[in-house]
């Protein structure tokens, strides 16, 4: 009797019960997914649809418009995956950088004392934040197609940059022997610039005298590599784009698909970043700005040294979310045919081999990984920026 009682009391123990129910729920969830996946594969098998990842080694058989690694129609489907992945990353990185810059400017402008600037920034945010991103991508793409000229009537700049509706064509720099010294000179210039800056900051701390270091910086970062470049006899030449037959050949080019996608993603995401920056700045108490003014800091110094460091602390978490959104939104490129992961791998390859489950799983895994990596990096940044206990 007492034995039963002890078992019952064990079962009626709150902690034990909580654990048991959690365990049961977990098992049920695991079993559910196991049964679902198992059933799916059984059905796929019985329908005579190919399964497995063997298709990755097969020849793709089609061409891709834009690729940064070696690719041709004889490459494997796995290479298509990499080409798409790299294009996704490229457009995301470009979009993130542009969106951050535009967002920062607009966010600050929104709080400007100048009535016109503040209203313009507000109008920009309200306009672009409230239109679906897919429509914006299609809008800019069609604008680009409608407004740029035919290759034979390209807009020309300096006889070397050509803009037409097949894209923007630019000279491609080709490094010759000795070019590495220019890179070294650039790095040395940067290091010296930092040292000079540090020197004058110290001087400022000690004597209170402000020195404008712009001239030094320019001389070190641009002047030094330029001198080395000339001294080595210009070890760099350019491959210029030339109109041959139907299109420009040579040089490097950016397609209208890439440009309109990057542009649409940046100006859309910038509105959210601007709002995050604004809320960050508004979170800095008025007293901070007043104290900065009382210390004799100029408005620019107050913004740079007092307000922004504290504002970014509040703004970074929502900005991280926007970076993630931008990366995920880049998959909408399928609508205009930019060769990113969804349109090449989850589009054309999927259609050729028909193995939806494997291909969509791989594609989802990529977005999951990219998103997790971005949030990991920015969580580290956030941790560094957060208030240290004093």
């Amino acid at each position, binding site marked *: 009797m007492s034995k039963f009682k002890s078992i019952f009391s064990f079962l009626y123990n709150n902690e034990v019960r909580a654990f048991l129910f959690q365990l049961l729920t977990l098992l049920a969830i695991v079993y559910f997914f196991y049964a679902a996946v198992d059933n799916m594969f059984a059905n796929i098998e019985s329908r005579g649809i190919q399964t497995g990842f063997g298709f990755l080694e097969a020849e793709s058989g089609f061409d891709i418009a834009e690729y940064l690694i070696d690719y041709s129609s004889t490459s494997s489907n796995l290479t298509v995956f990499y080409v798409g992945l790299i294009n996704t990353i490229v457009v995301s990185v470009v979009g993130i950088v542009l969106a951050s810059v535009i967002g920062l400017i607009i966010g600050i402008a929104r709080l400007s004392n100048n009535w016109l600037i503040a209203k313009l920034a507000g109008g920009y945010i309200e306009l672009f934040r409230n239109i679906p991103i897919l429509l914006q991508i299609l809008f800019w793409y069609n604008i680009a197609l409608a407004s740029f000229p035919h290759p034979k009537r390209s807009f020309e700049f300096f006889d070397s940059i050509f803009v037409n509706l097949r894209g923007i064509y630019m000279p491609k720099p080709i490094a010759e022997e000795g070019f590495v010294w220019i890179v070294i000179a650039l790095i040395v210039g940067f290091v010296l610039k930092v040292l000079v800056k540090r020197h004058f900051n110290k001087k400022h701390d000690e004597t209170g005298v402000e020195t404008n270091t712009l001239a030094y910086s320019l001389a070190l970062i641009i002047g030094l590599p330029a001198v080395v470049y000339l001294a080595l006899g210009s070890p760099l030449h350019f491959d210029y784009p030339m109109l041959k037959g139907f299109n420009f050949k040579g040089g490097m080019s950016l397609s209208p698909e890439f440009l309109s996608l990057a542009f649409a993603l940046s100006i859309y995401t910038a509105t959210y970043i601007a709002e995050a920056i604004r809320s960050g700045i508004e979170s800095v108490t008025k007293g901070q700005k007043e104290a900065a003014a009382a210390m004799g800091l100029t408005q620019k110094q107050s913004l740079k040294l007092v307000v922004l460091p504290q504002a970014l602390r509040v703004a970074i978490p929502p900005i991280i979310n926007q970076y993630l959104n931008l990366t995920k939104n880049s998959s909408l490129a399928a609508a205009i045919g930019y060769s990113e992961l969804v349109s090449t791998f989850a589009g054309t390859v999927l259609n*050729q081999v028909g193995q939806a489950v494997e291909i969509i799983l791989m594609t989802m895994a990529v977005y999951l990984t990219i998103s997790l990596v971005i949030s990991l990096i920015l969580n580290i940044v956030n941790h560094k920026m957060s208030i240290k206990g004093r």
Partner: protein
Amino acid sequence: MNKLLQLSAASLLAVTGLSANADTLSDVQAKGSLSCGVSTGLVGFSSADSAGNWKGLDVDVCRAVAAATLGDANKVKFVPLTAKERFTALQSGEIDMLSRNTTWTLTRDASLGLNFAGVNYYDGQGFMVKKSLGVTNAKDLDGATFCLQAGTTTELNLADYFRSNGMSYNSSLSDTSAQSKNGFETGRCDALTSDQSQLYALRTTLKDPSSAIVLDGVISKEPLGPVVRQGDDKWFNIVKWSLNAMVTAEELGVNSHNVHSKFKNPEVARLLGQSGKLNDYLGLDKKWGFNIVSQVGNYGQSFERNIGKSTPLNISRGQNELWSKGGLLYSPPFR
């Protein structure tokens, strides 16, 4: 508990359309309508008019199957699909059959869990260019930019053709044929490439159709036909023989106007269900063939009505003429 879970998981997947061993004919008859996958709008093959009525050569195949199985050619629910969506829609059971200018290839037939139920249009990939370009032959297109639809055999044929001829090209992909037409019109690309029938159809929708020409000659074989899921042979037979009925009717001179009159030819009697019991073998009503011919017409009627000489597409029969008149259309006998 386990049983319950298994059941709920199974029913969930059944709802999402992954149940194996379906009997499509019973499903269709129980629903009272046929779900047929068509294009998002390709004049002459499958497109909706201003009143929302679907018309076209591919649409008529759907209607023929509806006439055979439900006795009414209008009991069709048309599901517009992009090239990329079509196979998944069929595999998952969202549609009962696909009749969407789809090329029959070995890979698609053997690895997608699908069966091609015949050919309703023999096509080939061609090129459309602006007249002002002065191009007369596909070989002159070295270095050109092409507009094409993503996820089609077009992409593969183009790559093969340029590789084998040692030429280079650029491509601009889009999701629908309307988008690739837009790219062609704005000048994003020099040439539009697709199955020739599609090029003729797209040309009629240009702002100035006479500004573009479809080049002679094709670079591939594109047999287009209706597709069904693998594993339901009964349904496969019905779709296959509905198409054959249209072709045979033309061969035997039966059309929607004279179908009510008396024929002496015994094969006509078998086709129209006046004798024999071919319908039993297919599991259909005795009047299945009669319904197809009276409600949809024979293949020739469908061709002339949708893409023939009297339409803006103005396509000649060519390869799509009956075998007895020098074409490729050949139906096995109704016996």
